[in-house]
């Protein structure tokens, strides 16, 4: 026989290192760092628009529908159902919201928008949960169907009504907006001073409390609420368990179908609310094609946010911010961002050097230099680049961070009762 192998009984396995989780202080520190960096860029470039109150307020308004769609995605995917039908559910939300809104007032409209989205959710749930249809396929079908439905119904509901047409609903009364008295103006004045960091923070905070629609407040509140419900209640635990391991949940008496249904319907409700926000708050009319792909963007924001409400809000905020930069005068502001990117890359280079990863560090440094040169040698960036910036930023961030993302384990997988074993 062969020689005796060296044998040592080894101590019990060391626990696997847990996944890297960022603690609150670290997150806060990173946010603070980002603000300082942006402030530096603003001071250098004089592009005060990048942190103005209006900028932030616009960013928030643009982020809300994306965030709501993302929350919709989050609810569905946490229960294991991929929801690419968010776009369709949003369309239903815009339509139903406007249809009820112009007749019975905006709040009724919001309620109907949510109901419209829920209807889409029910359809998606029937297809994916009961019939085990591929989730993406069902979502695509829903998107087509919702588009056709909304157009078809518009011909009946809006054509011939005063100020309405087959493409547009009559105007809906506004939900109104409000500021926080005193504070809003004070922050706005502070923001106007263009002081280092102080004005930026004032802009950020001011934007959050200026010109607010009540629905925006509701939407923002839904982020922590979602977190609370999903992570701190029994209901949420069951819902998440269904997305992680439905068979295990089933084995403990959880009615998997029920939770999937609930989750997908709530998901539709969120998307519908996002749609209602578009037609009631953002525009005060339903318009054909109003959602313009925000459902997909919401989905992207959710993935970006690692299937967590906080991350999702950050993702939606980033979209809202870049989009708002674009809308609010674009070219010079985005030009200033080139410098920001260059600075960020320098920071990245330093980090990589610290981690002794020299080749990536070199590559990063070179890109940083290119960015800087681009910044230094131009006054504006092409407007098309500005328009593409939200998408580019998302792609970039995902490319840098996708490995750290973790989706619910049973997300998108078919499930049948009694399949366990």
């Amino acid at each position: 026989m062969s020689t005796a192998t060296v044998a040592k009984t080894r101590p019990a396995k060391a626990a696997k290192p847990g996944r890297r989780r960022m603690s609150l202080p670290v997150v806060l520190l990173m946010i603070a760092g980002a603000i300082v960096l942006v402030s530096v860029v603003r001071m250098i470039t004089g592009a005060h628009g990048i942190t103005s109150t209006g900028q932030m307020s616009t960013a928030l308004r643009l982020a809300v529908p994306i965030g709501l769609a993302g929350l919709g995605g989050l609810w569905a995917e946490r229960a294991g159902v991929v929801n690419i039908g968010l776009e369709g559910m949003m369309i239903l939300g815009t339509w139903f919201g406007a249809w009820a809104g112009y007749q019975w007032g905006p709040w009724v409209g919001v309620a109907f928008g949510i109901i419209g989205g829920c209807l889409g959710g029910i359809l998606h749930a029937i297809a994916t949960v009961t019939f085990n249809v591929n989730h993406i396929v069902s979502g695509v079908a829903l998107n087509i169907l919702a588009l056709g439905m909304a157009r078809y119904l518009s011909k009946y509901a809006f054509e011939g009504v005063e100020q309405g047409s087959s493409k547009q609903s009559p105007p809906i009364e506004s939900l109104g907006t409000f500021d926080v008295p005193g504070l809003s103006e004070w922050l706005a004045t502070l923001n106007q001073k263009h002081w280092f960091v102080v004005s930026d923070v004032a802009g950020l905070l001011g934007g959050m409390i200026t010109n607010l629609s009540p629905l925006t407040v509701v939407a923002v509140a839904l982020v922590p609420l979602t977190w609370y419900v999903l992570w701190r209640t029994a209901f949420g635990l069951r819902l998440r368990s269904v997305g992680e391991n439905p068979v295990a949940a089933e084995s403990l008496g959880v009615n998997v179908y029920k939770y999937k249904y609930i989750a997908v319907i709530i998901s539709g409700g969120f998307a519908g609310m996002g749609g209602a926000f578009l037609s009631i708050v953002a525009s005060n009319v339903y318009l054909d094609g109003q959602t313009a792909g925000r459902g997909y963007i919401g989905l992207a924001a959710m993935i970006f946010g690692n299937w967590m409400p906080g991350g999702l809000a950050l993702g939606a905020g980033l979209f809202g911010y870049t989009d708002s930069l674009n809308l609010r005068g674009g070219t010079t502001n985005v030009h200033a961002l080139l410098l920001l990117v260059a600075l960020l890359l320098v920071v990245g280079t330093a980090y990589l050097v610290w981690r002794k990863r020299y080749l990536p560090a070199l590559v990063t440094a070179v890109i940083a230099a290119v960015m800087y040169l681009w910044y230094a040698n131009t006054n504006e960036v092409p407007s098309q680049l500005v328009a593409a910036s939200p998408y580019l930023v998302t792609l970039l961030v995902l490319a840098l961070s996708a490995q750290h993302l973790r989706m619910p384990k049973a997300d998108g997988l078919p499930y049948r009762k009694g399949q366990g074993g």
Partner: protein
Amino acid sequence: GESSKSANTGGDKESGTYSGKGIGLAYDIGGEGDQSFNDAAHAGFVKADKDFGIGGQTFEPADGESEADKAQRIENLAKQGYNPVIGVGYIYAPAIKEAAAKYPDTTFGIIDDESVTAKNVASLVFSEEQASYLAGVAAASASKTDTVGFIGGVDIPLIHKFGAGFEQGAKSVDPKVKVIKKILTSTAQEGGFSSPDKGREAANGQIEAGADVLYHAAGLSGQGVISEAAKNKVWAIGVDSDQYKQDALKEYKDYILGSATKNVDGMVYELAKSVHEGKPLSGTIRGDLKSNGVSFADSNPKYKEMTEVVEAVEKAKKDIIDGKVTVKTS
């Protein structure tokens, strides 16, 4: 097999010399309810129907259709006996070119394009840049901050025309005037012509950057521009029709300095009239300042009170008509 165009015939309206089914109006993407030139064309259509009782029908395009579909639509209309057949938008140019050759007895109209030259084709085009020039003059004259803004809907040459005229007009008042330009979206699908919210945010940004007169060429999105201007108590300049008189904008009309109008409805009406009378228009019919095809609407009494501004605009208008000034189109 048989062609669909040979199938449906008959039902011609006989009224005087006119023999046809009425006006066949084919819309561009956006269709009815775009608060812009589709709607204007529709207004002309309605007016013509009212005046001559010639009737007719309107047709909307589908999403993502190709030129073949447009050709099919136009030819079908001609075959069925609609007269005149009007394509709203340059996008119909190839279709009308083809159909005009096949149906020499039908009068075709095309809006915003003059590339088709045929006896039975009337190209209804507009010098939007001239009206925009006047808007620029008005804006720069009325501005206290010497900063004015332009918000276009979608990144297409037509919108560049508006922007170019506006900028030239503004600079003609004072070369130091700053013109901030923003075009909302790259493509119409993204909602550049139909997103009041986008218009509003863009307007807000420009106002923040110091602009106190905003000119828009953004269809429905312009409603957002105007409402935001009103909210911030700065001037807005409307487009296409006299927006001071628009119902949907009543609330904000005090802040509408004027509108750079484009007489699409009038042109459609004229074309229908000419056909109805048996003397169909043909060739390029240019709506410019001289022919009143475009103009600067001054319905707002507050505008009329600003005599300096009014004078500047009148002078500019005269200069253009006299050919002293030529306005760039891009």
